[in-house]
């Protein structure tokens, strides 16, 4: 469906994407990366709005650079809120559908249908200025699916949605995927995309750092050097146990908070074995968690590994 061959995009001296090569077959993909990692550039390249500075890419077997023929096969839900005073959601979606070449009547019908799909039927004749953030997000989604594209690209679709809205968005995307359509979902939050069980593409600094199923990515993350926080009353005894049994970089004891922070070279092994070892030694652990679980830290580590500054433990 999508092929990148050593694609680099430069904005003068700023690198948008850096030497990306990948092949995406039809399916569900999560494009994960921190803010400013190159996700939007990746999407704009796929949409043919940007031309690669180096390398080449194809979408549905064609060069996407300003290839208007491709655009009706793709639906784009950008990470942008639409805001037009006095214009209803229905009129806006119908207008954007007309720009795809459909007649006025067809566009109105398609717009009304897509707004109903995203649960905006009740408010579609209201001015968009009266919409909440979540309603606008759903209207933006409606404009991307009105023409029933083969590939739906969503850029941070969960932004601004409340828990109910997030749930509804997930339900919608699951049903969309069930119909056999492809989805690329760009996000900086792992668990948002995980529910769709996608193949993950991890990007940072414009580079593709890792790819695979959520389980594979989680195992990569778990095997990265990481900090682990352990809450235990007998902090000194636990610290002694840890230093004697695990390969660690550092350990700090906070007696007042009854907490240990362990910087481990192999956090997965530590998380697996420490509870059993503590039990054997009659030490009661009340909490065990990874402290560096933000995506930004994970990406920083992956970037370090990618540059050869760090090696993954075997």
């Amino acid at each position, binding site marked *: 469906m999508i092929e990148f061959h050593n694609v680099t995009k430069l*904005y*003068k001296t*700023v*690198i*948008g994407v850096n030497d990306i090569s990948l092949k995406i077959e039809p399916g569900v993909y999560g494009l994960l990366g921190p803010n*400013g*990692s*190159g996700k*939007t*550039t990746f999407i*704009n390249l796929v*949409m043919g*709005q*940007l*031309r690669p500075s180096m390398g080449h890419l194809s979408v549905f077997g064609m060069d996407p650079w*300003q290839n*208007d*023929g491709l*655009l*009706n096969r*793709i639906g*784009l839900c*950008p990470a*942008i*809120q*639409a805001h*037009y*005073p*006095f*214009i209803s959601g229905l*009129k806006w979606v119908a*207008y*954007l559908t*007309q*720009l*795809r*070449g*459909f*007649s*006025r009547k067809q*566009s109105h019908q398609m717009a009304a249908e897509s707004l109903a799909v995203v649960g905006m039927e009740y408010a579609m004749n209201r001015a968009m200025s009266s919409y909440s953030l979540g309603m606008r997000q759903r209207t933006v989604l409606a*404009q991307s699916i009105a023409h029933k594209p083969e590939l739906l690209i969503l850029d941070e679709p969960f932004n601004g949605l409340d828990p109910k809205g997030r749930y509804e968005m997930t339900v919608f995307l699951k049903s969309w995927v069930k119909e056999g359509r492809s989805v690329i979902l760009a996000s900086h939050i792992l668990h948002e995309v995980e529910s769709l069980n996608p193949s993950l593409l991890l990007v940072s600094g*414009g580079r593709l750092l890792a790819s695979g199923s959520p389980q594979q990515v989680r195992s990569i993350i778990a095997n990265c050097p990481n900090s682990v926080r352990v809450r235990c009353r007998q902090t000194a005894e636990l610290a002694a146990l840890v230093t004697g049994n695990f390969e660690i970089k550092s350990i700090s004891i906070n007696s007042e908070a009854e907490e240990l922070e362990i910087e481990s070279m192999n956090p997965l092994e530590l998380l697996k074995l420490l509870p059993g070892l503590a039990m054997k030694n009659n030490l009661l652990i009340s909490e065990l968690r990874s402290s560096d679980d933000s995506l930004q830290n994970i990406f920083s580590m992956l970037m370090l590994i990618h540059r050869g500054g760090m090696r993954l433990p075997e």
Partner: protein
Amino acid sequence: MGLVNSIFATVQFEILRVLTLRRLSVAVIMALFPPTMIFWLQAGGALASPGFIITLFCGMVCLLSLLLWSTSNVYAELEGKSWAFITSRPYGRWSILFGKFLVAFLVSFIISWIALSLCMLVTGDLDFNILNDGKEVPKMQVWLALSGLLFLASMVYAAIFSLLGVLIQRRAMAIAVVFFTVVEVVFAVIPAVVGKFAMSFHMFCLLTHWVGWVPPSAGQDEDANEILQDFLNVYGRQDAWVHLAVIFAMTLLSLSLAAYVICKREYITLEDSQV
């Protein structure tokens, strides 16, 4: 068919966007400015040459409206963050260019034409002192000729400013003002071939064809006719259709260039460049 349909969809959508209190107020103020000034000057007895003053004021209104509507064709979408929605459609870029051109053209013509018509009403039976071959030109003919010129000016400058808007985003309006001053004001009065590049020159020639000379001040009809003769001797006498053809050709050329640029250019938003 799809392209035509999408252009008209853009025209319709843009007109819907116009119907806000703020934009309507601006349009009303612009349409009322020339007749108010004419009324005020007339009441004060300072309206020396009504034909010239009306042409000047209505032309200014037309130009101002075009600057507001045409030059921001791409920038308004980039700034309003609607560019991604439009360009992800097969006819998006085309329809934004041609749809906005049509709206700028229509809105500017309507505003300036209303202003012109109100000016004609305000002046009542006032003598315009416009002579053609020594005969007084009827007021209705002046109104028709100026309406025609406003139509042509709205069309050609909407196209030129649309091209500038496509080429330059951030300071398109300022560049358009500089362009107008240099090309349409300075070039137009240079008695050389360069003057013919100015659309204002061709419109002036059309005005002389249609109604004769609009004198810059009253009571100088004979001098004015002399100036006109000198002017025509320097520039040569061409039929009206030649000037009309130049204006239409310039409109087509500007729109074609703008269409090429808007379709081939990478428009990078601030968000894009921050990756």
